[in-house]
Structure formats: C-alpha cells, structure tokens
C-alpha cells in the first residue's frame, strides 16, 4: 500500500493554502512515504526540538528562518525543548557572544511561527499534557518515551523540522506507535529486586534497557511499590538516550500494562531477560567513566527538575554549604524555578552555593568554557551525552550522593 492523500491534503500540496503549508506538506509526504504510512492523521499537539544553537547549528537556524519567512504558523499547540543557554543570564553562564546571537536568531524564528516558549524537555509537567490514547507528534526522545509510557498517549519519535511541519499542518504519518498493534510488548524483562527501587536504580535500569532493547518495546515485570512520575521520567530519559526506547510497559504501573498479558497482547515474548541488583550495580559501574572521586561540577535536572525534585535537594542539603571548589547547578524550567522562588528555597539554595540555570540544560548549552573535567549527575541521559557534549568524564549516583559530593568536594563512599 502507498500513501493516500485526501482532497484537502492534495490542495495543500498544490500550494492552494500558501507556500509554507505546501513546503510542510512536501516534507511530510516524503517522510510518510519513507516510513510506509498509508495516510496522515490529525494530531492535537506538537513538541519541537529545533531549540538550541548547540544542536541546531547554522543549518537549523537557517532552516527555521526560511520556514518563518514563508509565513508559516502552527495550527495546533506547539511547545519547545530547552533554550540553548541560560534564559535568565547567559553572560553569567559564560556563553560566547556569537553563540548567543545565533540562539536569539533561532528563538525569533520559532516565535514567529507561533511556538509556545516553554523551553523545557518536560512540557508534560504543566504545559502540554496529552490524555490516554491521544495522537500527538512530539520530538525530544525523553518526552516521547514519557508520554507513550506513562500517559499512554501516542507518538512516534518525531524528528527535528518534521515536527515543525506537523505543527503547521496538525497532521502526522499514521505509522508505528500511532497504531495499537505496534504498541505491544516484544521483550520481557524480569526484574528480580525484591523491594522498591532506589532513586538511582531507575536511571540505571533505563540505561541498561536502552542498550538491551534498541528500539524494541520492553515489558518490565516485578517493579515493587509505586514509582512517582519523577522516577519514570529518569527511567524513560535514560532508556531513550542509551537506546531508542519510545515506549516501555511497566506491569502494574503504566496504563497499557495492567497485567503482563495485557502488555504483550497477541505478541509472544521474543526474548526474556532477567535483571537483578548486581546487574544494576554493574550498569552503575559502566556509567562512571571517571574512576577517581574528585568532582568539579554537580549537574542535576536532565530531564528538567520538577519543583518536587528542587524541594528534595533543599531537604538533602539541610542547611549545609556547597564546597567552594565545586559548582552545583540545577537545571529547571521557568515554572519550577518561579515556584522555588515563591517558596523561598531558591534564595536559600543560592545562598548555600547552588546555581539555578533557567530553561536550559548541560547538554544543549555551552559549558566547555568553564573547564570542568569531571561532572557528577543523577541522570542516565546526562551520563550518556556528557562525554561528547560537555567534554567531561562522568560520575553517576543518586540525588543524595550528588548532594553529599557537592558538600564534601568529592564523592563520599
């Protein structure tokens, strides 16, 4: 079967609704044909990844400007990933001038198309939250994995610039995870840990699952207790970064997996993998690319920290000061930071030596200017990208361990 367009869609392709919509439809049709879609379907929101000069480069900025110049406008709510530099004070963050110029050009272009400037990788906390079964077209690998897994909304891993086309047209190719039969489990993961997972074990499990699954759909059985959404955010982000995981089923936790049978549907498990406590410790050891205990920077908030996570750091720090030789940065979106400010804990944390980096993150903003050699984080996604995008060796631990390292100036055994 090949792609069939409706009369309205063909009219767009013929340019009857203007240059921008024609351009968007031409790209969407090519991508739909390549992915084997038979039709386009309506989607109700989009989340974009042409957001930071660090990952868009000149070509991305030029592309966004070209699309804006055509007079393009989004026809469905369209949010966007983190800003490419500290949104409050890029100079204080040592952002190179030329980088800032390009970031501001990119911002202007996407704003002209009508983006909702949430500047966050977690738009589902408070800005853009699809319901169960809703078709959306999102980029940002961690957010795609979260909304498919935790909310049961339906999106493929959309792609930079195609996401803009989806936003302009309000449509996406009907393939992959939009179809119920493609959402069933393929690999069974038996988790042999007879207690609720510790906070660091969620990203470690995600990191291991990403490597193991690639783009296959895993069904995790045996999770005890009741993970909070922040745990699921860490799990999904790590699995999506170390592999291509776009959907996980966690039996008894996620909405499409009330039971093991429901998670697999008509599928037979192609593979069964057992993961125990020792496997998670082994994964943790692999995630530590740095073998010493010294730390230059503790970086939390990949994906963006929620207000709950900021409150947790405030509690763990318990009035102590950050070691003068360690930078301690928290990345969060403007809403979480505003809430921390209202609560008075932003000031207390800043007085203790913590820096808030607003609306951006360590991976997609310039950080090499600081000369950090060793970064510690509680994020499996950050561990994956850090060596390439921050130029640092990585240390991984739970949030509590990160806080202790920040206070002591080195990893505390």
């Amino acid at each position, binding site marked *: 079967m090949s792609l069939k367009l409706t009369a309205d869609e063909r009219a767009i392709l013929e340019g009857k609704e203007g240059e921008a919509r024609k351009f968007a439809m031409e*790209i969407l049709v090519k*991508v739909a044909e*390549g992915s084997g879609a038979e039709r386009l379907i309506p989607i109700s929101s989009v989340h974009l990844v042409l957001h930071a000069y660090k990952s868009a480069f*000149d070509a991305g900025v030029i592309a966004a400007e070209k699309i804006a110049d055509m007079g393009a406008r989004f026809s469905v709510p369209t949010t966007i990933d983190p800003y490419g530099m500290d949104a409050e004070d890029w100079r204080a963050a040592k952002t190179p001038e030329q980088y800032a110029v390009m970031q501001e050009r990119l911002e202007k272009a996407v704003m002209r198309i009508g983006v909702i400037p949430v500047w966050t990788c977690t738009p589902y906390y408070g800005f853009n939250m699809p319901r169960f079964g809703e078709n959306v077209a999102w980029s*940002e*690998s961690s957010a795609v994995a979260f909304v498919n897994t935790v909310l049961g909304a339906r999106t493929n891993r959309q*792609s*930079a610039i195609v996401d803009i086309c989806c936003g302009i047209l309000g449509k996406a190719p009907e393939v992959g995870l939009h179809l119920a039969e493609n959402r069933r489990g393929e690999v069974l993961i038996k988790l042999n840990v007879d207690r609720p997972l510790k906070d660091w074990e969620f990203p470690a499990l995600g990191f291991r699952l990403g490597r193991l699954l690639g783009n296959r759909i895993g069904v995790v059985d045996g999770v005890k207790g009741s993970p909070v959404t922040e745990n699921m955010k860490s799990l999904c982000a790590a699995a999506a*970064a170390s592999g291509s995981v776009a959907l996980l089923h966690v039996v008894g936790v996620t909405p499409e997996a009330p039971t093991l049978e429901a998670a697999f549907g008509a599928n037979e498990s192609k593979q069964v993998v057992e993961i125990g406590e020792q496997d998670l410790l082994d994964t943790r050891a692999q995630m530590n690319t740095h073998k010493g205990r010294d730390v230059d920077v503790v970086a939390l908030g990949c994906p963006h920290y929620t207000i709950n996570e900021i409150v947790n750091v405030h509690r763990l720090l318990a009035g102590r000061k950050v070691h003068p030789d360690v930078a301690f940065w928290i990345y969060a979106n403007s809403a979480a930071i505003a809430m921390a400010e209202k609560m008075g804990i932003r000031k207390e944390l800043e007085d203790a030596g913590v820096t808030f980096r607003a609306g951006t993150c360590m991976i997609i903003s310039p950080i090499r200017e600081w000369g950090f050699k060793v970064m510690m984080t509680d994020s499996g996604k950050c561990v994956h990208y850090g060596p390439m995008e921050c130029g640092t060796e990585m240390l991984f631990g739970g949030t509590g361990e990160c806080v202790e390292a920040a206070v002591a100036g080195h990893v505390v055994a």
Partner: protein
Amino acid sequence: MSVYKGRAVVEGAIVEGEALVSSMPFGFFGGVNPGTGVVIDRWHDLFEQNMKGKILVYPEGRGSTVGAAIILELARTGCAPKAIMFNASEIITVTGGVLAKKFYDLDLPMLDRFECDITRVIKTGDVVRVDPAEGTVEILSSK
C-alpha cells in the same frame, strides 16, 4: 562481486565510495561533529572515524530526535556521508536525507530492508556502488 537488494527510502543518484561499517546502532546528535564528519560518540565502535564522503553502514538509528538537524548541518558543511545503509530505517535519519535535498539540493540516498544483515556482508574499506533507483548495493572491491 556481490550485489545486495534493498529499498531506497531516500532517493538520489548512483554513488560509489568506501564503506564505513558498524555493528552498533548510531545516532547523529552526540554521535558526530557536523563540522568535520568525525564520530565523537565515546560509547560507539566508530569513535574517531570520519564519515565524510563514506558510505555509512549500521544496523539502525538510535538516540536523539534532533539527529536530523545534525545531518542537515553535515549537508551544509560538506561533511556528510555519500549514502547511508541500514537494516531498518527510522524517521529521524530519513528526515535528514529529505532535508538535505530540500535545503541544500544534496543527494544523500538511504537504503534499508536488505534481504540479509547488511552490516555483516559489507566490511569497512570495501568499495561499493549504491544504486538507489534499483535499491541495490554492489561490492566493487574488498580489502
């Protein structure tokens, strides 16, 4: 020499070149420096290899959804591979090929769905001819 049949998921003119082959999934963001074509992914078996002007072969795409923008920058800087072949294509890499044509009129053909595991039959250093119209790759000479 051997000819393998697949499908052109991104079209383009016939190209010949040296193959750069990996058995690991690959993602372009955090994967390659688009200003040089050198692989920067420390976790990857192609680390420090240069993909510029090569026929890049790997099993499937992975990782960040911003990968298409990196491919577009590779097209702009002239450091893109000549063609990409994989067992299974995905939307992010395919988009990169579509955008390279759209914005820079660059052919970056991509072939997938071979009848065999393409990463096992082609070796790094093999000289191959990719014919997108026929959906074939031919090994012209082996190292």
